[in-house]
């Protein structure tokens, strides 16, 4: 009997874990400190304490719960089979835009084009209607993750599939 009780308790614990884990948000960047200065169409790096890691940026670009850039853009990442075609291709993006210009486009594209479909990855949550309670006061990416992605995109200078990463 005790054995069955144990099994029951075990089942209960497992079901608790299974049921409740998906409800926890994967990203929490509560009350982000959003203070950046936009000059023309770019953000100069005001956060000098943060330096981006291009290798982390490359993973964030692929991650469906983080950047998920591949949903809309094409990038020199051959291991993902499907790349979206909604946005422009980001091959050789660094030849077209400077680092500061890329930073504004990742941070909040709607500052440049108010009807853009691109989500603002570091857009102030106050500007958003009906954000889910799971993501209340959260931005999609943290300031560090934005820097990581920017530092990855800056490396895209040469032909596709010849990216140094």
């Amino acid at each position, binding site marked *: 009997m005790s054995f069955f009780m144990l099994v029951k308790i075990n089942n209960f614990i497992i079901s608790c874990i299974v049921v409740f884990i998906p409800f926890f948000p994967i990203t929490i960047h509560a009350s982000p400190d959003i203070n950046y200065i936009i000059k023309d169409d770019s953000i100069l790096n005001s956060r000098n304490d943060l330096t981006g890691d291009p290798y982390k940026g490359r993973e964030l670009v692929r991650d469906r719960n983080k950047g998920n850039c591949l949903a809309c853009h094409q990038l020199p990442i051959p291991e993902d089979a499907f790349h979206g075609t*909604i946005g422009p291709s980001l091959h050789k993006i660094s030849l077209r835009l400077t680092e500061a210009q890329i930073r504004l486009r990742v941070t909040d594209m709607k500052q440049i084009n108010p009807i853009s479909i691109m989500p603002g990855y570091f*857009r102030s949550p106050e500007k958003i209607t*009906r954000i*889910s309670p799971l*993501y209340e006061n959260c931005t999609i990416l943290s300031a560090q993750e934005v820097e990581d992605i920017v530092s990855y995109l800056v490396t895209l200078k040469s032909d596709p599939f010849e990216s140094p990463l």
Partner: protein
Amino acid sequence: MSIFNQLLSAFFSRLFFLYILSVTASQAELVSGYEFSSEQAKEFQDDDFQNPGFLLIEQGLNVYNKIGDNDQLCSNCHGLNGDQFIPKSIAQFPKYHDILQKPVTLRDQIQHCWVSRLDNFSLEYDDPELLALETLVRNKAYGEKVNVNISGKIKPYYEAGKAFYFTRFGQMDMNCAQCHDIYTGKMLRGQKLSQGHTNGFPLYRLESQKMINLPQRLRECFRSLRAETFEQDSKEFRDLEIYLNARGNGLKIETPAVRY
């Protein structure tokens, strides 16, 4: 002089842009979501033995033949196995109900009959029996063109739904029109964006591997936008359902469809 020329060219380029916008908005051809599906999904939908929707229709028939609390049956009015259903009438939903004094979807109408004619307790809004009945009834109008009337008393509800369609929601900060009007046909990773018509609902969704109706699909949309969802029987979703159905006026009903 050069400034004048620049102003003139800027003015005309803007005019041309507006013209293009108006043309694309007015002449957008209605295409069913079937055309945007993969070949496998199309085969899956066309084969009545594979299509899981027909399983639900069988279940719907069981509910249909259930005796109500006042010993009445659905078939007393609608004939054996629903032969007396009028496809033209089914294709007109959602429509304004004069007795209830509000617009009703097909789901609401079934619920109304279920309570008032059969004297049963009302079904929960996401009850599988209600979904099965809706699939059965909507399938009776297979091939009929959607024909929602948007004049008269339903007009304010339609306008509210239209405003909802163009409102941005959630952390992703997108509205329905961006995906389903502007970027139709483009790829979202491996998935082609459709025009977002409702002629296939209730449908079998390959991603969640179950039959869903329109409000359930809208809730999944809201979840992927990271927005706070509305209830399935909320006024907002009902308004949106009116707008979405009217937007697809002229498309043939494909229930039960198979979509991603």
